[in-house]
């Protein structure tokens, strides 16, 4: 598919360049008014914001639940909630954070907002389907809330059988909610894949696709390939409770290990649904704030795809102690280590991009560096858990808990926050307080490490996860961890305050406050309702920082409307200067 600029079929185009309007009167946020217009919008940017509102709500709920857990763990025995409540709270914390926050966070919020902008498209390929995905998400969430208020769920977010098939509480509503939610994720992935394939503006060849989109593309592939398997698994589990079909329940002749295979076949790739789009954001942020060509474009792009691919083959490493054969364990362990390689390559590429750059330590860059540090720890501890003999000791202990929080929160949440702060001016046309943003980032970093570093030690010492009571020797670690959790809470409160302040009284943002070369920064902030008045023509890649800024101003083809993205485009010198 890829072609290069020096293609002999080069067409000469008449290109007129123009500057984006600064602080436009009319933009997507105010062009249509009223709640109804918002609730029925098919505009990808507004749908992104609807998701942003929803996931913020769920992040808040999940965060409060986490604080409840940490507070209860201040003492080795019961502090203020009973064991049943504790079990329900950790189940909900996990399920809400994973299914309602992490999975939709980057693809559905930032992806929806930025993907068509980066492609030079007016919208995603199926805008109504996009809105439908959002409402499917809302319905799934409603089922889950219904489950919480009608008995709760105490199975852990993994819903392992036979416990989940026999426990009291409303497991059915919960699994059905997650089942529905899966379709939201599938449809978003489908929409993105088609959009990336078919809606690229003229000139955006595969080798000029922003790395953020490579990340989203790999994520979407996982979403459409893995989520259906989760859907069928949860459907079978729902049927197990409704009709006792006996596929997973040993009491009826079924097999609980089969359930684990089914579940992790989705849920391991789901980990990559959560982290791979983060890689995309980090690539954008590091290149922009280093003002330098990204190092190893293809290495980063292809390693995302490689991770997505190998990610499908490693689900069994969640089951090293579950009683599968030694051969299976060996293969899964081997493949697990292979995932480490493309991940390592990315980290080195990002470092190399910073080398000899012109680094501006703005908030998004600060988050990107926090990401690099925390995610690297998450990666190394993943190697630890991939080593078979060590995993036998560490499996199902706090070590695992700390590991995935380093990957999910230290990795994905930090990447999400980097992206949110990066695109915030584009989303709302307002700047936030740089000072408070950095303070909040620093507090978050300290709080995060206070919370989860002690958990590595506890886990290695043998503290099993999902424990309501624990033996006294772990108390000081738990208390330290709890204090850290509250420190993180403070950081998020500060963040909420300065972001709301930015919305209400923030300084107006220019169309390109970071001096980025990427396409979405060449239109006004906030963008107009249909993004581009004309189909833009793209000549330079998104990371061509060696070329002057003026070359990146949008051009429109005077007499050509072809959408064939493979077509290489060149601009003659005289037109360039018209800008």
């Amino acid at each position, binding site marked *: 598919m890829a072609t290069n600029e020096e293609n002999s079929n080069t067409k000469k185009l008449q290109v007129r360049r123009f500057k984006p309007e600064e602080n436009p009167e009319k933009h997507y946020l105010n062009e249509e008014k009223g709640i109804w217009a918002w609730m029925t919008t098919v505009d990808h940017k507004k749908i992104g914001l609807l998701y942003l509102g929803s996931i913020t709500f769920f992040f808040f709920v999940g965060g409060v639940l986490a604080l409840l857990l940490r507070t209860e763990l201040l003492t080795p025995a019961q502090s203020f909630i009973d064991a049943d409540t504790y079990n329900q709270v950790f189940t909900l914390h996990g399920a809400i954070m994973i299914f309602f926050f992490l999975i939709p966070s980057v693809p559905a919020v930032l992806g929806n907002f930025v993907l068509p902008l980066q492609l030079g498209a007016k919208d995603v390929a199926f805008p109504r389907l996009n809105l439908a995905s959002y409402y499917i998400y809302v319905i799934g969430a409603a089922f889950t809330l219904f489950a919480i208020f009608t008995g709760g769920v105490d199975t852990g977010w993994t819903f392992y059988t036979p*416990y989940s098939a026999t426990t009291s509480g409303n497991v059915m509503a919960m699994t059905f909610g997650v089942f529905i939610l899966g379709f939201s994720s599938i449809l978003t992935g489908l929409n993105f894949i088609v959009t990336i394939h078919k809606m690229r503006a003229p000139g955006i060849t595969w080798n000029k696709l922003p790395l953020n989109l490579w990340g989203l593309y790999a994520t979407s592939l996982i979403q459409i390939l893995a989520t259906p398997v989760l859907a069928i698994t949860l459907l079978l589990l729902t049927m197990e409770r409704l009709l006792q079909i006996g596929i997973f329940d040993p009491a009826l002749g079924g097999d609980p290990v089969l359930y684990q295979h089914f579940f992790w076949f989705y849920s391991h790739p789901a980990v990559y649904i959560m982290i791979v789009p983060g890689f995309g954001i980090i690539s954008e942020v590091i290149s922009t704030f280093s003002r330098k060509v*990204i190092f190893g474009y293809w290495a980063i792009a292809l390693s995302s795809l490689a991770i997505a691919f190998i990610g499908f083959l490693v689900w069994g490493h969640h089951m090293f102690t579950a009683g599968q054969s030694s051969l299976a364990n060996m293969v899964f362990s081997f493949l697990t280590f292979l995932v480490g390689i493309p991940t390592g390559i990315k980290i080195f590429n990002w470092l190399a991009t910073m080398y000899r750059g012109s*680094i501006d330590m703005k908030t998004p860059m600060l988050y990107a560096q926090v990401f690099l540090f925390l995610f690297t720890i998450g990666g190394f501890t993943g190697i630890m858990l991939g080593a078979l003999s060590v995993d036998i000791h560490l499996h199902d202990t706090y070590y695992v808990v700390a590991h995935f929080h380093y990957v999910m929160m230290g990795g994905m949440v930090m990447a999400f926050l980097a992206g949110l702060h990066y695109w915030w001016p584009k989303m709302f046309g307002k700047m936030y307080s740089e000072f408070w943003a950095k303070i909040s980032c620093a507090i978050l970093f300290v709080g995060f490490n206070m919370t989860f570093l002690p958990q590595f030690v506890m886990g290695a010492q043998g503290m099993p996860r999902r424990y309501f009571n624990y033996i006294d020797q772990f108390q000081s670690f738990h208390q330290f961890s709890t204090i850290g959790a509250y420190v993180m809470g403070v950081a998020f409160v500060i963040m909420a305050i300065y972001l709301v302040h930015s919305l209400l009284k923030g300084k107006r943002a220019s169309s390109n406050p970071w001096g980025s070369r990427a396409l979405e920064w060449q239109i006004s902030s906030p963008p107009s309702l249909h993004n581009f008045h004309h189909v833009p023509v793209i000549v330079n890649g998104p990371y061509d920082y060696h070329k002057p800024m003026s070359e990146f101003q949008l051009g429109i083809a005077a007499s050509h409307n072809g959408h064939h993205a493979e077509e290489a485009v060149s601009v003659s010198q005289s037109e360039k200067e018209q800008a």
Partner: protein
Amino acid sequence: MNRLSEFMLPPAKSTLAAETDALFHFINVTSIILLAGITFAIIYFSWKYRRRSEDDVTPVITHNNKLEITWSVIPLILVMIVFGWGFTGYLNLTTAPDDSYEIRVVGKSWLWEFHYETGHVSVNELHVPVNRPVKLIMSSDDVLHSFYIPDFRVKMDVLPNRYTSVWFEAIETGESIIYCAEYCGNAHSNMLATTYVHSVEDFETWLETAGSADDDMDPVELGEQLVTRNACDTCHSTDGTRLQGPSFQGLWGSEREMQDGEIVTVDENYVRESILEPNARITAGYDPVMPSYSGTLSDRQIDAIIEYLKTLQ
């Protein structure tokens, strides 16, 4: 190194623990060195190449094959070492010697039962000889559990529809804690047991006399001991606190409403039924989660528990 080891890991009390620990430390130290390098690079670059003016010009460096191959191959070699090391360690952990001493383990919500060759059953107490490989053959009566002894670095899930096993060889006498590591419901975190590692002679003596000491004990005293030994008190308090099951205090002779509305007087027959077939009649407001003690407790032991319950008014 030793102090780091003590800080990070529990004492190594089995023959294979040291091998696992060595790999643990290898990965830890390598990771810390690499992490330090990466962190240094982040901080150094951020300072050294900080933006000096808006017109900074940056070089075009799109790739560097030598460098990229280096940072792909070195990690690959490192992880392959870890893989091989981990896998061989794992094979040792899963291949029990032929002359292992076998003990049957049954996981029930929420207690561990250990069945010895003599027919003796101990609850939440695993007695093993030192310097002799011990193989545990495990199964579950209800949901998934996981048998975990941190000191021996062994863990294995316990499943309801098949047998799984772990083995270890303790290298010193003493006590080690046993956890359930797979979430199994309400009292998951109370599903603890203790391993008692005896010298070979002590173990033989224990095995011969186990249980017989009860014979000449007062029934009430024996009942009290049995309630603790068999983990009844994990779920039934003796002071009126509500746990997973009804408290024993004031239970005897009282009238309780069952889930189906039936009113039952707590007498000898009801207690006996509740011990042997716990889910036949459930007190209203509680879940049917108690495992059966059929085969674990003898008639004489049940009588003793009944006598003990009578005293808890």
